[in-house]
């Protein structure tokens, strides 16, 4: 009789802990999606700035047509709506580089640089850049937490059953520190 109770007790404890682990993994997976969603919102804000940027630069710097066309093209791709998460981030890295290229070109047009329109635009761009950076860092932190959860014992067993796979953290493009090769932007 007592052995029966003990067995039931052990099974109950096991069941409860399995349910607990399962729930925790679900939560972590949702956190990952949530974090990417947050990043996505910021990326979209960046895409939305592009038409304004192109219009402003065009007014003063018509010679930079190729740069502007390139970035408009990137925007179309980004807003086409059929990209995987990895593709979205890769595209955004390209857009970052494109932005930097335009900023370099703008140095040659002091009127443009001094215009209120452009100054406000620059502030907004910096703001969005800062927000994207924060969103990416949050995403990486959440991913790391998720990866840890699915790999430690004994959760890894449950994770195996749930087919949860390890996700890659996104390397934040150190665009600020790269020397943007403006010629590449023409050739791509």
């Amino acid at each position, binding site marked *: 009789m007592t052995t029966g109770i003990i067995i039931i007790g052990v099974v109950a404890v096991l069941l409860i802990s399995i349910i607990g682990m399962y729930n925790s993994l679900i939560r972590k997976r949702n956190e990952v999606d949530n974090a990417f969603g947050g990043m996505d919102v910021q990326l979209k804000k960046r895409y939305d700035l592009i038409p304004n940027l192109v219009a402003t630069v065009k007014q003063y710097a018509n010679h930079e047509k190729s740069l502007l066309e390139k970035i408009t093209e990137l925007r179309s791709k980004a807003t086409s709506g059929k990209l995987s998460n990895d593709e979205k981030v890769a595209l955004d890295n390209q857009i970052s580089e494109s932005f930097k290229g335009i900023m370099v070109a703008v140095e040659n047009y002091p009127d443009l640089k001094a215009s209120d329109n452009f100054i406000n635009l620059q502030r907004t761009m910096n*703001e969005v850049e*800062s927000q994207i950076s*924060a969103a990416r*860092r*949050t995403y990486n*932190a959440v991913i790391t937490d998720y990866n840890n959860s699915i790999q430690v014992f004994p959760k890894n067993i449950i994770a195996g059953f749930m087919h949860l796979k390890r996700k890659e953290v996104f390397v934040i493009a150190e665009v600020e520190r790269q020397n943007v090769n403006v010629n590449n932007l023409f050739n791509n």
Partner: protein
Amino acid sequence: MRSTEQLRNLYHTELKDQLAGMEKERIRIKRLKIATAIFGFILFLILQNIYKPGIAITIGIIGVIIILAAVVYIFMRYTTYRNQFKQEVVSKIIKLINPEYQYDANRHIDMHEFNESNLFSTKAERCQGDDYVEGKIESTDFKFSELNPTYKVETREDGKTTTEWHSIYRGLFFHADFNKHIQGTTFVLPDKADRLLGIKRKNLKRDKENYELVNLENPEFEKIYDVYGSSQVEARYILTPAIMEAMVTIAKKYGRNMYFSFKGERLYCAVLYNKPLFEPRIKKSGVNYADVEEMFHLFGLIETIIHEMNLNTRIWTKE
């Protein structure tokens, strides 16, 4: 930032003589205090040995009146001495750092501004402090003062209510205009060593709001501070890798007893020093360079924070 070279210069040309002049006063006050104490003690001994109540009471009353008068007199002299110290010494140190700063020795930051910061779990109900400095460096305005916020604790026993005032903290308080728009609140608090199981508290509760622990990438920063915020993303938006480096530098300069909060449009900072600051000495000689240097270092908190954290870089949407 003014160099120690210039401070040394100020000390030798003006402050040393001023302090030396005040030395006499300091010794006089010290002697008066000792004399009063001795007088009180002798009075006590005399009273012990008189058995006629009439004479005892008379002597007692006269003695007490003399002591009270002495205490009042000492207090008045000390106040003059202290005011002189603030006007002639502390004020000059501030002027050396930046002549544009406004200094008021007897004012402190408003209590509601302290409570606004939400830096501690209790709200202040009363505030003491002094050495108020107000100013602006380029686009960043700031306020600074020594502060000792307190709160009331009432205990009822057998129908009697006793009120005690407890200190929330004692030290410096500073706040400045932050260079980004902030929606929620982010706290950067000293790292708590109360990790029983190697686990940090996951949440911080303030004012019925819940703040999540935020784990950041800079290991040196994480050793010094614990971060709690209303949003994981906003905490990282504020605490960029550059800002984290800056805060590590600040902690190295001012120690690990620093509390920060980012709220509204401002950055708030409290530094714990559980002793009075910017006060003239009574017990030991007041003429020494180390004291002057310490005050200079404490006021330096203003420029250190504003420059290290690049609060004047206004390239985002906030101007």
